[in-house]
Every structure is written in structure tokens, then in C-alpha cells.
């Protein structure tokens, strides 16, 4: 089997093709795109969606869906701002508390979706409202500004000339990839998504693993929340609203299947980059925000379409070379 077929077979091929096409297109029509300052901006813009996409991918892998990360981000921003600015809690303590809160919020989602037997769509639809409502309650609806001067380097700091968020993304994705490929829990997540009843019969603790996926999703949302607070040095209940669907979009563009069991975590990063590059291109051309939403929607359709048609493309090539395309878990 030649290298071209093997490449086209893998799940990550489609998303990378789409991304490359978009990067080339945007780069050609936007001279300022390749500029290092702009690339730095893209990195910052992509970081939050990319991190939320990790949690989204894990939940989607188990066959569920999480609509709440945006609300978690808002709640984390507001709580952190309130703790640090209004109650004088030291920033490091505040951050640790926020990560724990993310775990708790994810735990609630996971518990209701597994032991509670409520479909995750409904659970996270509800918690999406509850968590954001709590965020409003904490701030009373106003924005808390100037949370802490220590926040700035967390987001805007650089190491070896590269913005720190780049490293956060790399570390988190690296950990997620290792987790999914080389741990029992990670393998179990794929098993549950692939065939839940077979997983149960094979001795996999389905409820526990599903809860773990939601807990990780809550944690990644909390991390994104801390970074959002650092980015804007403020806390508001309105923050993060686009992140929930952005994370899901990134995962889907990356080839994750909403039925569960099929996803590649690194493709989700490609998906997040796709979204960020498109938005960046539109910004550089000073396109109105409304059209950016339209474009994002079209990108999702195009990217998923490429993924679907690639199967047919592979089949066409297969007829030339006498083999068939396929889709495996990762």
C-alpha cells in the first residue's frame, strides 16, 4: 500500500488538508498574515478554543456532548476576579481553587450524565444556564476590572520569544494524546464510544470513565477560564460564550464523530487552528463580525465535507489501486 493511500486513510488527513488550503488561501490574499506579530496573535487567539477542544473531544469520544464549557469559563472568570480583586485572595491560591472548581463543575455534569442517566445534551444544556447564572450572581452583572497585575505575564509572557499560551497548548495536547493512547482510562474512553454494551461486558466501568471525561472537560474549561481572565485582566459573566460551540466545532472539524469512538486529539488542534486562522484572516480584512459568524459556519461545513468526501476520494483512488478506504478509532 503506497504512502498516499495510508495518509489519506488516517483520520487526521482531511483536517490537515483543509487547514493547509485555508492557510495558503489566506496567506495569498492577506500580506500581513505571515507577519510574526500576526502569527503571535493567532497563537493567542487559538489557545482558548484549543484548550476547550480537548475536553470537548474527550466527551464526544464517549458519545456524549458538553455544552457548558463557555459557562464554566464565565463562572471561573467571575469567581477568580471576585476572589482576587474583591476578597484579596492571593492569585496562585485563586487559580488553584478555580481548577478545583472546574473539576467539581465537570463532576456534576458527569455524574448526572452517567449515574443520573440523563442524556448529556440535556444535562449540559441545563448546567450551561446554571453556571452562567451563578457567574451573574457573583458579579451582580457588572464587570470586575484590574483583577491582578500578576495575571499579565501568565498570558502575555514569552519564553524564547514565543507566547506562553503556545506552550500551554503544547503541554496539554501532549498530555491528552499520551493519555488517550497509552493509558487504560484513555483506551476505555474509546471503547465506550465504540460500543457501550460491549464495553460493559468487557468489564469496563462505563459510568466512572464517562464521569472522568466530563471532569477533564471541566478542568480544561477552568484552565481556559483562568487564561481568559489573564488575557482581559477582568471578569465578566458575558465571557466565554463562543467557546462551547467553538470547542465542539474544532473537534468536529478535526474529524471527531458525534456518535462516539472516533476522534484524534491532534486533529482537534488542527480544527481549532482552522477556526482561528479563518477568524484571523477575516479580522485582517476588517470584515464585520456578523460575516465572521457566517464564514465560521461555512468553514465547518466545508471541513466536515472534505472529511466525508475524502472517503469517496479514497474510494476512487482505491479503485485505481484496488483497496478500500476505512475509518478506525484513532
Amino acid at each position: 500500500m503506497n504512502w498516499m493511500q495510508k495518509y489519506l486513510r488516517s483520520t487526521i488527513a482531511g483536517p490537515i488538508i483543509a487547514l493547509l488550503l485555508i492557510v495558503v488561501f489566506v496567506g495569498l490574499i492577506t500580506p500581513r498574515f505571515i507577519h510574526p506579530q500576526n502569527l503571535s496573535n493567532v497563537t493567542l487567539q487559538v489557545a482558548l478554543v484549543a484548550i476547550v477542544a480537548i475536553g470537548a473531544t474527550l466527551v464526544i469520544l464517549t458519545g456524549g456532548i458538553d455544552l457548558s464549557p463557555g459557562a464554566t469559563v464565565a463562572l471561573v472568570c467571575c469567581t477568580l476576579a471576585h476572589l482576587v480583586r474583591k476578597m484579596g485572595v492571593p492569585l496562585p491560591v485563586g487559580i488553584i481553587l478555580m481548577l478545583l472548581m472546574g473539576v467539581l463543575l465537570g463532576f456534576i455534569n458527569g455524574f448526572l450524565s452517567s449515574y443520573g442517566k440523563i442524556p448529556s445534551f440535556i444535562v449540559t444544556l441545563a448546567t450551561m444556564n446554571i453556571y452562567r447564572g451563578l457567574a451573574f450572581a457573583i458579579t451582580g452583572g457588572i464587570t470586575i476590572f484590574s483583577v491582578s497585575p500578576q495575571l499579565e505575564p501568565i498570558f502575555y509572557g514569552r519564553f524564547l520569544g514565543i507566547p506562553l499560551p503556545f506552550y500551554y497548548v503544547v503541554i496539554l495536547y501532549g498530555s491528552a494524546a499520551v493519555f488517550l493512547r497509552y493509558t487504560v482510562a484513555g483506551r476505555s474512553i474509546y471503547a465506550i464510544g465504540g460500543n457501550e454494551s460491549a464495553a460493559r461486558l468487557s468489564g469496563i466501568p462505563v459510568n466512572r470513565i464517562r464521569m472522568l471525561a466530563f471532569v477533564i472537560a471541566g478542568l480544561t474549561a477552568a484552565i481556559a477560564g483562568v487564561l481568559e481572565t489573564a488575557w482581559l485582566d477582568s471578569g465578566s459573566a458575558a465571557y466565554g460564550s463562543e467557546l462551547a460551540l467553538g470547542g465542539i466545532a474544532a473537534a468536529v472539524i478535526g474529524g471527531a464523530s458525534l456518535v462516539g469512538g472516533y476522534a484524534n486529539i491532534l486533529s482537534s488542534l488542527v480544527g481549532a487552528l482552522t477556526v482561528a486562522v479563518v477568524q484571523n484572516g477575516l479580522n485582517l480584512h476588517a470584515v464585520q463580525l456578523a460575516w465572521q459568524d457566517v464564514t465560521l459556519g461555512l468553514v465547518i461545513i466545508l471541513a466536515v465535507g472534505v472529511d466525508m468526501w475524502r472517503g469517496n476520494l479514497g474510494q476512487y483512488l482505491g479503485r485505481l489501486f484496488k483497496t478500500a478506504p476505512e475509518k478506525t478509532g484513532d
Partner: protein
Amino acid sequence: MDAAKSALWIARGIFKSFPGVQALDDVSLEVFPGEVHALVGENGSGKSTLVKCIAGVHPRDQGELLYGGAPAVFHNPTEARAHGISTIYQEFSLVPTLSVAENIFLGNYRTRKGTGMIDWPVMRENTRRVLEELSLTLDPDAIVSTLSTAEQQLVEIAKAISIDSSLLIMDEPTAALGLTETKHLMDLIRRLTAQGKAILYISHRLDEVFEIADRVTVLKDGRRVATAPISELKVGEVVRMMVGFDVGLHYPKERNAQDHARLEVEHLSTDNGVRDVSFTVKVGEVFGLGGMLGSGRTEIVRAIYGLDRITCGHIRMDGKDVRFHSPAEAIEGGVGVIPENRKTDGSFLNFDGPKNITISRLDALLQGPWLSLSKERKIGETYVKKMNISPAAMERSVRYLSGGNQQKVIIARWLFSEARLLIMDEPTQGIDIGAKHEIYNVLNELTANGISVLLISSDFPELLAMSDRVAVVRDGHIFQIADGNRMSEVELISTASGITLDAEAAS
């Protein structure tokens, strides 16, 4: 052949290929009105493909289809149906969330004249009439997902006969049916052929083929090997044509049972219908559970595997008292299960072979905190070689494997997890005879290695031949336990149905 009675349907010179495989190679078939024409062959011989080409599902590469002498071209199953071809598929084409009536008239609703709205009373009446043909009394409004597999198969059949067709294609129609239902189906087939309809009957169950068919066509590797009246053939000849070599119709049973007990069940009752069940399975023994559909065999097994709650009684594994509250505990305790429906309950279609094999014992792969993928590959290779599994299983998702290979992968999973008691629920259902024999050999190897097997099979000759002892289950209780070669099929059926059949009716 009566020259005046010309063939109703003729398929001539059909060629069909898929990427990498020539599924049909110059196959021709003639079906006469009022005949039951059986189509037999191993998995992969092209039976299903031929059927799909005739029924308009696949476009053929070459060849023609003639109806009453005139060419017939279908671009989709609806056109085929309009021309009088009705198909019952092996994997049901029912919508589980809809009712029986809605399924039977799927796409074919009876509407009130003028309004286009569904005429429910008429539909319900028609449904009842159709079901009566199958001697089935089901509520037309019953939701299909609540029905048993046998009932669902009958609804699938009802769907096909509700259309006025000249050719009825049946692909493994008795796969999920018990004895009584199969008998009703056979009666129905005789009634339909008396009306002049033609039936193309595909089945792995050669005893059925010999009972009901007028002529049989044997396919092998996409080619027609022979077509002949059934009266001119013996079963052994047909099998030889299908498989290409001489497979003795005897079952290759090895007796490896040892003296000490592996599993002891005493006065077991559960909240799911098991009533005071007691039996012992020895080390290296194949213990068969025989009974009709719904007799409680699966429920007994569910209790042992930790899926149902035990209300009273004891279970002992290798002398130790055990009570499993979940499959994980059962696996820990050395039990494994190969479920009846491997697609929904057994195989992970998003995993390749090695991943399917290791899934029940992932901790054996751990090197430190990490799974060793290279170890997993080696394990995969070991089992592929040992159990003669198709090497494609190493690289690709198991969805691309044949039923027999998928089954072997699942068996490998439990061998790897070091199960000492394997529960096999209908392990050879829907598998061709060559692969069946491979499973029998696997059974022998398991028992030779001291593994005990709890075997459920509705193929009674198979059950009686491959089990050391057989227990007859009825209404959640065991009524008789005897040596497999001392119990006749008649006796098993009698005890299982609580009635006495005379020898002629049951053979």
C-alpha cells in the same frame, strides 16, 4: 423440468465486483413460479451480493435480469418491489422506535382517499391479517424494540409478504426463530408456493434447505458450482460443493472433561426469571443449556455474569463462594462471555483486531503506568496465528472481517483474559459451515486446556454433539440433565416444550 412452465425470473451472466474482490463471476440463476429455490454457499460465496443485485440494491457490472422473458432493469429497491420482488434481509430492516403496523407498511402506508392522511384502522386490520398468515398474534401498535428477536424476524417476514410479489427472497429467515416459529414459516412458504409465488431461499441450515426446497444452487467464490433438484442430492454432496473439500458431517467433539468442578450453581434464583436452578460444570467440560426461545437460558447466564440480581442460592467457582455484582467482577473471577449478537454486544467496530482482543485485560499490557502498544501487537499476532484469524485483523477495523473471523477475535479476547469459564451464547449463528467447524475446533482446544464452556445453542444437533452434558431449561428452571450423546433431539425438544412429540415430527 416441465418445458411448458417457463422460468419466471432469470438472472443471466451476472458479474459484480467491489474494490479488491470479484464478488460475482458469471452467475446465472433461474427461478420457476411456485418453486422454492435454495441458494447455498459459504460466507463470501456471493449469495448476499447476488440477492442485492437482483433486488435492485447494487447495480451489476454485467449481465441481465429477465422477468417472464422480458428484460427488467431496476435502479433501486423500490423499482424492484414495484416489479414484484420482495426481500427479507438477514439484518432486519425494521425501525425499532415505530410500531409493528408502521414497520410492515413502511413507505407503503394506506391513506384515506383524498386527504393523504394515514388510515390507521385499515392499516391495523391489514397488519392483523398479514400476521395471521404467520400464526402470529401481535399488537399492531406494539413498538418493535419491545419485541423479542424472533418476533422481530417474523415482523420482517410479514413486511415482505404484505406486498403482492411474484418473487420472495428470504435471506436467513430462520436465524432468530425457534422451532415452532420455523414450522409456521415452512407452512407459510408452502402456502405461498401453492399460490404460484416463487421463493429464493438462502440459508446456512441445510436441514431446512432439504426440507423445504425444490431445487438448490450452490455458489462458491462468486461462481455457480451447480444447480439441481434437491431430490437428486445428498447433504454431504452439497457441503462438499460449498466448501470444496469433504467435511464430515460428524461433529469433531473431544471429551476433555475432568473430575473436579469448576462451577457449582445451587438453588439459584434471580429477579429476572431464574427459578431454583442447580447444576455443576466440570473443569474442561462443555455444558450445554438447551431450551426454546425465552426459556431462561440467557437469564441463567446473566446471573452468573453479574448482570442480574441474585435473590437466593449459591455460586462457587473452583470451590470458592462467589457472587458477582458486575461483569468486571465476573471477569476478575475468571468468567468471560461471548454474547449472542456480536455486532451489538461483542465487537468494537472502531478498534482493530489487537485492540478488540486486549480490551478485557488491559492491565496485562501495562509497563509501568503506560500501555505497551508493541506488546499488544505481539499478542495480536499470537492469536491471529493460533486461531487462524484473517491477517487483515491486525491492521484494519474488525468491521471488515467476516462473521466467523469476528467471532474468533472475540473468543481470542477471552482466551487472553484467562477466563476459566467461557459463556458462549449462539456462537455459530449465521456462520458458514467451514467457519463453524473452526469454532468447534476452538471449543476442543479450550477444553483441552482445562477451560470450561457454558454453551447456549438453538442448533440442537450442534448442542447435543458438542456438549459433554446438556441441561434442558424451561420457564427459568432446569428439568433434565443428561449426557449429550445419550439425549436425542426428540427428547430435548419434548422436555423443553413440556409436550411429547412423536419421533417423526421432531426429526
